[in-house]
């Protein structure tokens, strides 16, 4: 069990450490980039990174939270696990928000945390934190390495667990003495057996038959497409399927891009700030087919009024999501792509539901998204439409959390998968800008735009350092309303205009801020300026910070107020 005694002739230079095993294991997994931040407990690992610097890239963020959100952005764009490295204690606890965010939005991450040496674990040693205890509820799985020879196998397992089934974050906590330990073996056993982990991907044929039967009988069918379609890379199959049978599609917030927003059969996004058409379709449908969405409460509104007359079919790779919130008649535990392929193999007749499609078309025509346009000032919705136009709807868009996020979801019509990076389940302010860095690292040739609020941007703006350092042409567009807009909106609507701590009395000068990081910065206050400048900004080869001053009093509409049902939207176009 213990590594053999060191042969007398081996010099230290020739021997490897546990940390070298770690780097080798990452290279085996095809990892190109580590998102990290050093510290005492990971010094041996950083030494190994130094030795391997020609073979693996490490990006030094300025706060661990920035590194993990960037890794999430990277994972969202590539579908591959983002790899994060932080030191013990405060380094690890600074990652918690990102781990929880990745867990609830099903993003694959492999997170390495340093730990104090095994001999002092449990003694409240310097920079000791119970990482396993803290992260157990917010990880798909976690490990504390106890023997150096287990490390390669654990890493292989972790990548497997993070990226298969329903993806999620896996934490590997490595005591410092293990990463520092000398090893003399050529290689260690990496074969693994996980008898308790066998995600099912093949749909049950009987359930598929039931679904086909329900589809043939349905008069008002609707499909809800969630992020499962993106994880399963099933967009093409989805398009083929709904085009064959002319079934309308709505998406969740995280499912945006899984079905083209400009498609004739698209109803737009559903949920709290979804379109009237989409929400009424969910309310009135007689068959709801959910592909890879988890029926989150921001989507369903009051469950009593959610799809009250519908037969519900739910395809999800995670069996625990089926029947969790919404009673499901046809449960299908499967990978979405395999399930849709199976459906495509069945040739069946569907009633052509003219009445239903006419009704939806009427809703689309009479109750589209709408806003008050002002003449000179920039309204935030108009701003997003302009960004969409100037980028041909082809940019990778990341957002922070708040009003701007909802407007981006509403007005940047995504036509392709994996171009939308947002924090849905946790709603993490501070996510948007670092996520854009990760997205740009994942797709160096793509146009990446971070649409952020003036509040959330201030949570992680220290990562501006990285843009010039890494030559990343991220465009940061601050939708600056001088307020914590979403909080202000709720206070206006539900707390009788009592704006408690939601208006910023002073703001930093974002142009000077950008300048201090040697980044081009500009302040835009009128529509005219914006139209002139925006195309140039997007074409500029380097990073830009655009401080766009927008109307403070705009609210996100339409809206399902908390506790209300899908059919009780307020702020629908009059």
């Amino acid at each position, binding site marked *: 069990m213990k590594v053999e005694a060191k042969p007398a002739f081996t010099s230290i230079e020739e021997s490897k450490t546990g940390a070298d095993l770690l780097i080798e294991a990452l290279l085996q997994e095809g990892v190109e980039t580590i998102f990290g931040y050093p510290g005492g407990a990971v010094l041996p690992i950083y030494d190994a990174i130094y030795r391997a610097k020609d073979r693996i890239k490490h990006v030094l963020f300025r706060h661990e939270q920035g590194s993990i959100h960037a890794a999430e952005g990277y994972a969202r764009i590539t579908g591959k696990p983002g790899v994060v490295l932080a030191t013990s204690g405060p380094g690890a606890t600074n990652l918690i928000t990102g781990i929880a965010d990745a867990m609830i939005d099903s993003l694959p991450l492999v997170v390495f945390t340093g730990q104090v040496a095994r001999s002092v674990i449990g003694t409240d040693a310097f920079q000791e934190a119970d990482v396993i205890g803290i992260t157990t509820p917010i990880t798909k799985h976690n490990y504390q390495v106890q023997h150096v020879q287990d490390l390669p196998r654990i890493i292989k397992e972790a990548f497997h667990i993070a990226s298969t089934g329903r993806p999620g974050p896996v934490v590997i906590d490595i005591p410092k003495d293990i990463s520092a330990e000398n090893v003399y073996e050529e290689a260690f056993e990496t074969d693994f057996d996980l*008898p308790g*982990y066998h995600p099912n991907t093949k749909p049950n044929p009987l359930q598929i038959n039931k679904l086909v039967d329900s589809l043939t009988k349905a008069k008002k069918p609707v499909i809800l497409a969630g992020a499962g379609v993106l994880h399963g890379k099933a967009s093409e199959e989805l398009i083929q399927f709904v085009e064959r049978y002319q079934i309308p599609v709505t998406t969740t917030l995280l499912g945006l891009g899984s079905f083209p927003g400009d498609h004739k059969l698209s109803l737009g996004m559903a949920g709290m700030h979804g379109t009237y058409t989409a929400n009424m379709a969910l309310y009135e449908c007689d068959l709801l087919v959910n592909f890879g969405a988890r029926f989150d409460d921001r989507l369903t509104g009051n469950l009593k009024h959610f799809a009250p007359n519908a037969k519900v079919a739910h395809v999800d790779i995670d*069996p625990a999501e089926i029947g969790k919130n919404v009673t499901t008649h046809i449960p299908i535990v499967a990978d979405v792509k395999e399930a849709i392929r199976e459906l495509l193999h069945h040739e069946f007749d569907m009633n052509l539901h003219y009445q239903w499609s006419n009704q939806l078309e009427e809703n689309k025509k009479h109750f589209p998204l709408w806003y008050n346009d002002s003449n000179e000032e920039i309204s935030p919705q108009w701003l997003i439409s302009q960004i969409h136009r100037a980028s041909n709807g082809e940019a990778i868009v990341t957002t922070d959390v708040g009003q701007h996020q909802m407007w981006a979801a509403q007005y940047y019509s995504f036509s392709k998968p994996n171009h939308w990076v947002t924090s849905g389940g946790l709603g993490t302010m501070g996510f948007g800008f670092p996520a854009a860095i990760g997205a740009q690292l994942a797709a160096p040739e793509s146009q990446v735009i971070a649409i952020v609020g003036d509040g959330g941007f201030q949570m992680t703006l220290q990562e501006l350092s990285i843009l010039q350092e890494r030559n990343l042409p991220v465009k940061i567009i601050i939708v600056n309303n001088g307020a914590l807009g979403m909080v202000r909106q709720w206070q206006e609507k539900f707390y009788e205009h009592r704006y408690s701590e939601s208006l910023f009395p002073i703001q930093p000068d974002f142009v000077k801020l950008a300048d201090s990081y040697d980044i081009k910065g500009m302040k835009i206050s009128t529509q005219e300026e914006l139209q002139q400048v925006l195309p140039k900004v997007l074409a500029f080869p380097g990073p830009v910070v655009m401080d766009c001053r927008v109307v403070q009093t705009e609210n996100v509409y339409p809206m399902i107020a908390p506790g209300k049902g899908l059919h009780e939207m307020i702020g629908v176009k009059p």
Partner: protein
Amino acid sequence: MRRIITATVQNKSGVLNRVTGLLQRRQFNIESISVGPTEVEGISKMTLVVEVEDKQKLEQLTKQLNKQIDILKVSDITDKAIVSRELALIKVVSSGQLRSEIKDIIEPFRASVIDVSKDSLAVQVTGKPEKVEALIELLRPYGIKELARTGVTAFLRGNKPQVAELPSYSLL
């Protein structure tokens, strides 16, 4: 409703914490939990007694447990043919005179006295939780100084058809 759930788990550090933490954060009430090794090395069995609101919650509980990587199998055995047992140690206030009275009470329960001191008596009882409960209630009037229960452990009874197929001879 009260359910008896068994979970076969890999005997790895932290697995008990994973299970109890999961149930706690998903707001399930654990009435009792017992853990111990099984006939297979490295595999342990947990028996949980939980109080759940309805079938949907119960389904969630088993599905969420099943998602844990270190959990191999989860079964709700409440409505199956099972044998379930619990052990309780009960320290009762008792001076000399009451001692024989208490012994009379515990006798039909096949409980035994395992410790005697000047002013107390320690009783050990094994059986279904209801039986243990009944004895505790009978002893309560004498004054229970200390009570320790293991929680239920249980498994399925031997397969009925197989038993029937056995040649019928007496083992004694």
